[in-house]
């Protein structure tokens, strides 16, 4: 039976009727049209479905939409501002950290949760922070560089929300 949930996605409030077995990933993609959230495995292994749920980056394929009732979700679509791309998005573009791009939404969101709490991470900290996000294309080298780069932008005060 469908239930009504209230959920805030990228600063917008929604009231939605959902089946209990609908995952948050499918809610975002199929009901809200936010297809920037990807599904690479649907088992929690790849991180391409990463979203930020109440400040924490999580696998949206393992969460029921109904569990997110009352929560606030940020997806890749919610990062741009009127000023343009988020510093992390900009750094990913400039550093060549994106190849096929299927992992990129998740990578950027995991990078963001890291930088939000620590704008000056070391290389190893960056690697650990994105270790739940698999990338088969880049060997992670340029992703790590891009996150570090965006971190310096954060420090210069251009980052954050």
């Amino acid at each position, binding site marked *: 039976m469908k239930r009504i949930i209230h959920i805030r996605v990228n600063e917008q409030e929604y009231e939605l009727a959902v089946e209990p077995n609908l995952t948050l990933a499918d809610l975002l*993609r199929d009901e809200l049209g*936010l*297809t*920037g*959230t*990807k*599904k*690479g*495995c*649907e*088992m*929690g*292994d*790849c991180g*391409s479905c990463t979203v930020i749920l109440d400040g924490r980056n999580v696998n949206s394929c393992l969460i029921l939409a109904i569990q997110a009732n009352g929560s606030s979700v940020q*997806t*890749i*679509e919610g*990062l*741009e501002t009127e000023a343009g*791309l988020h510093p992390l*998005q*900009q750094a*990913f*573009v*400039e*550093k*060549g950290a*994106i*190849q*096929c*791009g*299927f*992992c*990129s*939404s998740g990578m*950027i969101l995991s990078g963001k949760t890291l930088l939000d709490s620590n704008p000056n991470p070391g*290389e190893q900290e*960056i*690697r*650990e922070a*994105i*270790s*739940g*996000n*698999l*990338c*088969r*294309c*880049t*060997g*992670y*080298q*340029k*992703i*790590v560089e891009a996150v570090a780069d965006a971190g310096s932008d954060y420090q210069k005060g251009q980052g954050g929300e």
Partner: protein
Amino acid sequence: MSEYDVINSRLSRLDTPDKATGRALFIDDISFSNMLYGAILQSPLPHAGIINIDTSAAEKLPGVKAVITAKDVGTVKYGVSPARYDETLFCQDKVRYVGDEIAAVAAVDQATAQEAVSLIKVDYEELPAVLSVEEALAEGAPQLHAEYPGNYTAQVHQEFGDVKAGFEICDLIKSSTFVNKRQDAAFIEPPGCVAVFDLHGALTLYSSTQVPHYVQRTVAMVTGLPVGKVRVLKPYVGGGFGIKASANANELAACFLSMKTGRPVKMNLSREQVFKLCRARHQFLHKMTTGVKKDGTLVSLEHECYLDGGAYSSFGIATVYYAGSLLGGPYKLQNMKYDGYRVYNNKPPCGAQRGHGGVAARAAWEQQLDMIAEELGMDPFDLRLKNMMQAGDVTCNDLNMSSLGMEECLQTVQDGSEWKKKKGRLPKGKGIGMACGFFVSGAGYPIYRSDTYHCTAIVKLAEDGGLAQVYTASAEIGQGSDTAFGMIAAEALGVPLSDVRVMSGDTDMGVDLGAYSSRQTLMTGHAVKEAAEDVKHQVLEVLSKELSVPVQDMSIKKGRVVFHRQEPDFSELRTRYIKEHRGWTDNPKDEPLTFREASRIAYLARGSIVGTGKYKPHELGGKYKGAAVGTSPAYGCSAQVVEVEVDLETGQIRIEKMTDAHDCGLAINKTSVEGQMEGSLSMGLGEAMFEEVKFDARGRVINADLAEYKIPTAVDMPPIETIVVESNEPNGPFGAKEVGEGAIMPTIPAILNAVYDAVGVRIFELPLTPERIYTAVQDYHERQKAS
């Protein structure tokens, strides 16, 4: 400073802003109104006869719109190579692996489609299954295909020079055996497609493919539709690595279901189904014997190889050829004998994966070369330098190294890794190793025998002037080809990249064999360059007439018309242009004549300005059987150094650093070249260290997910130093050649050689799990004690 305005730089890619913001559409992001969802019934048994298929319950399920089996779609055989079309969309009388397709369903939603599949009743008669090369080749073994007796997909027997005579003059002969494991490409995007059959009888297939062209042909052949009525489009694709380089059953089933229902049909593969589809790297068993002289001169290589192929051919014939032919270089070797066997068995079919056919062979041989160097008391670098080919050299199997920056690769990685300071001076448990490799820059021939162009390109100028639109049917699958072609077009035309728009991945745009065998930059690049030059010439012709300046006295550069001699008075042209753009705020004023004006004037004179380009390789060497596999217009090459630390008590390996140099000819986009190198290294590291698709005794994949099939995470990857070496490839556009696949070649052997340096024991089997290292070291000590 580069002599170029656009290429040979680090421009940001065209596609990445969309990918960084979630705008980029991948296959599963595409939907149509009234769309149905497809699901496929796959065999649960490795080998069985089909007695009966009962679809009645599935058909009765509310919401089900079509159920199809071999009875409905026929049994047209398809595959990769026409010489071995051994698959049918659905099995009719026999299944050959767990995952073999039997039926498909289209329904109003995914849940209904899946339920319907579970309602299809199949009566099987189980047959004995063979799950390994040994079992498949054993006497009296069950046969998979009556047409291919002995369970051989293909055998290759080649000899170049006289191997036996060569051995007779050798001072050292070394033999070893090596085995890798079956891989999965583990792209992060599982394949999917949407088929749309329209009211005009035309079929459009959106698919996450790397080869729209071959998919188009296969779909037409199997459905019986004319090729002209089949259009294949690829949206953004989340990696392919070879596995998406042929039509698959999902695509074909979606097409039939859409034709039957008249509605769009979406078919996605789950991650588990990706492992069943497989088509990834084979398991290769290599037996090699190399003979050298005291001074390190390589003389003879005798090589035997068995490929654990799976139930169908897929790319297997090419694979078994590549496994032999790609050892012809990059060393001077006069005598080479190769016996290769690609063997069927009741597992999912293997195919092509990055470094097609050559990766395990390279690993086996480069490790053996290190063993030889050690026995001769030579530094591994010196042994390779001693035998290094030079640009212009031709291998014994007739591969022409028209450019070869091998020596520079070796020098730069040696310096970059501080090899000389480290080799032989590291404490126990630490090690350093190196290896080389080379790879084709595009297969010399299409997969089907044909005189077709390998690619065509169209460059069209916007009628209003100023913007160039590039159309190719090539496949951007993440490697950055769209950007490369945009840059090539911009350079050839003389405009900035921002004035070029790139469209690709659509069979309506022409012919392009697609993204495989590291071919697009060289091949599609040629076609795009030619088309852009054509357009440029047409514009200059019109200008020539208007201004009475000979064409050869003008060119276009950075979006402006450049007059090599005196600048003519073009004010009349400008006035005309401005007149047509009254109200525009950006009309040219005091500047030199712009490309924007010139192209508008050209349009006014001639109508749409469209340039075309095409490419197929020139006559390539090799007249022997199988010469089509390995010959290429050019070869990329690379050298690599890897440093490791091994925990001697547990066998755990930590890769500390990788230094890689790759000769890609002229780098069109240096950042993209590095990206291909870094990606190759991580795929190689994964294969060396963790990756193995495992089966149970019933032929089922045990680890069909990304938890148990382990690809490297960010923490497993060390810092990578990439060195781009640029030779000038005479056969490449602007001197460019490949990097996408070749860069993986040295990774595994460099790791193997580094691990040996660290632990003093040679490992001849992948992956290098802690247990394997630990056991090998233990066994070695036992043997030492015993002797």
